[in-house]
């Protein structure tokens, strides 16, 4: 553990680690006892424990999806992963109560500062459990609930249990089953009827331990006419061995509600990031995923919206940046299930060096639906000669008056643009960076200001040294 005690200096913000002692450790490997241990320390109700055990069986029965996905998945050794690590199950309500080593980490990541500046609530998860969770007082008076899954299922069972695992059933895929078995941490949010939360709620996910698997679970319910924006950020230090992050995120927008879910994923290059995200949009509601993937070794994530109610709207805006040794396998799913539903997907990817980015899409409009619309645009930019990009959309359309359009393009940075900027005195690297930022600019603008500044900076960092 020598090298871990030292500070690892970095160009990425998240690549550092302080020594931490864990009071709770489920050990290495996944067995029914692992699940009992987690349920035990969390003091969960019997139905939750049973849910976990069932999920473990489903996980074990499902094959790896390598008949369509990358063979790199086979590099994950489930028997070498630590499934639960924490210093305690109750998050602190003030930063002063957060254990010093953990606090140091989050301070360095700038979380308390951001909270003061522009957030309505923050939850900071360190490995398996949230170390800190606080929401502005005004919001709890309005009835907004912002807790972790343990507390959510225990204290507010009547609100969360009816929706828990309903949008993404355990058996949805191998990794949703894994999450259902060992989930810990994440956010359970309920926004009551008509309440519009103006500032974003934020969760910050931090993996600190080596060989660790983080399995947070998020469930957001926006009641009729409610509005909420949720942001998540993630980092991990660079380890020698691979780390697994496998989350399940379910969103429920009831009639007329609006949910916006923003992710800036900046895991280190050894993290397998295999996440299932799906929203259920009722009548006239809107669910919007803004998904930005910069880090990780392999990300497989296809945020989806089930458009269940008339005139519901779903949107996925996605940016992926794949550098050397990275594979960003991202995309979107739009399942139309009611008349006059509309969906929009805009995905932009940049492949640098030997990076590989993949877009996978699914758009379904079944029969007997009327006047549904989908628009999909995916653009890929290739920076170097050995960069790679793939596009695999799947579109099924039936019914009356439905229309779907899909467009994708692959291009490189225009030599003429670079020449023009250089003739104006910019260096080649600066010109390249400007051009790449221009490529994603219309999407970046959709991010909240603080995030878009951050994003531009991150992309500049990632691009550094890759051109010229």
């Amino acid at each position: 553990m020598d090298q871990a005690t030292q500070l690892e200096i970095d160009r990425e913000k998240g690549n550092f680690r302080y020594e931490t002692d864990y009071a709770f450790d489920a050990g290495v490997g996944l067995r029914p006892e692992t699940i009992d241990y987690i349920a035990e320390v969390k003091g969960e109700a019997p139905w939750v424990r049973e849910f976990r055990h069932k999920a473990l069986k489903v996980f074990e029965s499902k094959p790896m999806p390598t008949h369509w996905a990358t063979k790199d998945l086979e590099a994950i050794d489930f028997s070498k992963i630590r499934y639960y690590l924490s210093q305690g199950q109750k998050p602190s309500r003030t930063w002063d109560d957060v254990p010093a080593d953990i606090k140091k980490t989050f301070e360095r990541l700038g979380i308390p500062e951001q909270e003061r500046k522009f957030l309505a609530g923050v939850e900071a998860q360190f490995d398996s459990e949230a170390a800190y969770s606080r929401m502005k007082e005004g919001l709890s008076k309005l009835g907004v609930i912002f807790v972790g899954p343990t507390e959510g299922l225990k204290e507010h069972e009547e609100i969360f249990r009816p929706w828990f695992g309903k949008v993404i059933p355990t058996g949805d895929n191998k990794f949703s089953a894994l999450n259902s078995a060992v989930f810990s941490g994440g956010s359970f949010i309920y926004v009551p009827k008509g309440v519009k939360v103006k500032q974003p709620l934020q969760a910050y996910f931090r993996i600190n331990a080596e060989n660790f698997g983080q399995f947070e679970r998020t469930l957001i319910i926006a009641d009729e006419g409610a509005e909420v924006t949720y942001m998540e950020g993630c980092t991990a230090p660079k380890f020698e061995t691979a780390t697994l992050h496998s989350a399940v995120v379910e969103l429920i927008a009831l009639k007329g509600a609006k949910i916006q879910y923003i992710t800036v994923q900046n895991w280190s290059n050894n993290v397998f990031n295999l996440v299932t995200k799906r929203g259920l949009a009722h009548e006239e509601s809107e669910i919007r995923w803004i998904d930005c993937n910069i880090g990780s070794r392999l990300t497989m994530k296809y945020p989806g919206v089930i458009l269940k109610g008339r005139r519901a709207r779903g949107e996925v805006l996605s940016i992926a940046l794949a550098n050397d040794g990275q594979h960003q396998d991202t995309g979107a799913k739009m399942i139309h299930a009611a008349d006059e539903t509309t969906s929009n997907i805009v995905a932009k990817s940049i492949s640098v060096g030997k990076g590989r980015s993949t877009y996978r899409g699914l758009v379904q409009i079944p029969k007997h639906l009327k006047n549904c619309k989908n628009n999909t645009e995916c653009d890929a930019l290739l920076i170097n000669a050995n960069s790679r990009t793939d596009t695999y959309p799947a579109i099924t359309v039936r019914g009356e008056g439905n229309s779907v359009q899909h467009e994708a393009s692959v291009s490189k940075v225009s030599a003429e643009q670079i020449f023009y900027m250089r003739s104006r005195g910019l260096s080649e690297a600066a010109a390249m960076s400007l051009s790449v930022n221009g490529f994603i600019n219309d999407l970046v603008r959709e991010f909240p200001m603080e995030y878009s500044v951050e994003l531009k900076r991150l992309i500049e960092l990632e691009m550094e040294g890759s051109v010229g």
Partner: protein
Amino acid sequence: MSVTLAETLAPVAATSPALEAVFEAELAQSREPEWLVNLRREAWVRANHGGKISENGIAVDKKDERWRFSGHKGWSLEDATRSKNKFAGKLPDIFADGHPLACAGQLTYADDILTAQTPISADLARQGVIFLPLAEAIAKHPELVREHLFKHDRALGGVKFLALHQAYTRAGAFLYVPDNVEVPATFFVAHWAASPGAALFPHTVIIAGANATVNFLDYFGSTDETSEAWVAGAATVITGPGARVFRKSVQNLNGRSLAYHCDTAICGRDADVRNISVHLGGERARYESYSKLNGPGANLELCALTIASGRQEFDQRTFQDHAAPRAKSNLLYKNALLDESRTIFAGMIRVEPGAEETDAYQQNRNLLLNPAAEADSLPGLEIQNQNVRCTHGATTSRLDPEELFYLRSRGLPKNTAYQLLVFGFFEEVIQRVEDEALAELLRKLAREKFGK
């Protein structure tokens, strides 16, 4: 006397001496050279290997991405037979009513048996052009045939069908046009399914030398509406530097037939290869089109028009494989869907690492004319070179109500306006055939399809 394919293909086939003897008997009767006999035996083993062929025909593997969205019925071989008798009736002349086709040579098959032949002119023969029935070409030009037969064919999922095809195919055309020979007229081959349960394995080989010009038409039809056919066909186009090959194919089998076709094009340096396929018939029809841009500066144009009605299923898979720099490819697949029909388009553009300055395009347009019809699109890209321009687009929609409104506001009755718009949708493909006789035929077939 005929032998049913189901018998020869039952899972026990490879181990049953009696049934294997049937395959062997056909081989022996053909008196083919040893290399070909070996190819056929290998194909036979491939077709039987792995247990995917059962008494219900060729089973479809649901987990195979190449069969995603396909109906999982399996392709029954139960009633498929190898006809031994020459068709006695009169075969239709598809160009009878309209413009005659300017023909460079013609072959007509019924149930895989040659029924008529118009040889090429003495002038073409003098220039070294070879246009022969496949079986005759094998006997007369074994070395030339050996160089290309089955060498390039690449199935996109239908490996079993292709293997079966290679084991049995003896009907079809072998065309060789030497360097610098330009043939503006069309080589025309018609394959008719005539008797109930006929199994057809039509094959086409087109070899165009450097700077040669070739026009080719394959037509697949049924002599009546009730005799179901089981077709597994393949066509290969091989082009030398600067060659220009334009192949058209029309699949107009009756609505009870099952059709599989595997088209392969190998595009040489600066070659200009065009392929237009029209898909009208069959209960289920799977079409696979693999094109390799093998030479720098090659230009490929792939175009298809499908009109689906009733409960027809058209399953189309394409692959534009860019292996050389500065090549260009352009694909347009248009589907019109009536009734409860179904179309699947799965296209892939792959750009290999060395294929810089590739310019590739892929477009799938689906016109839904009935709410119960279903169109699936899987347009794909796999790009491994940064210096490229690749785009694809897929749209699915009904007729534009505004366009309909405009035409009606000009006094056109609703039906006429509707037809104008639908036939306008087809016209984009039909005009590209650049041959009045064929364009007229296609318009007629499209009208007939709507009349049904």
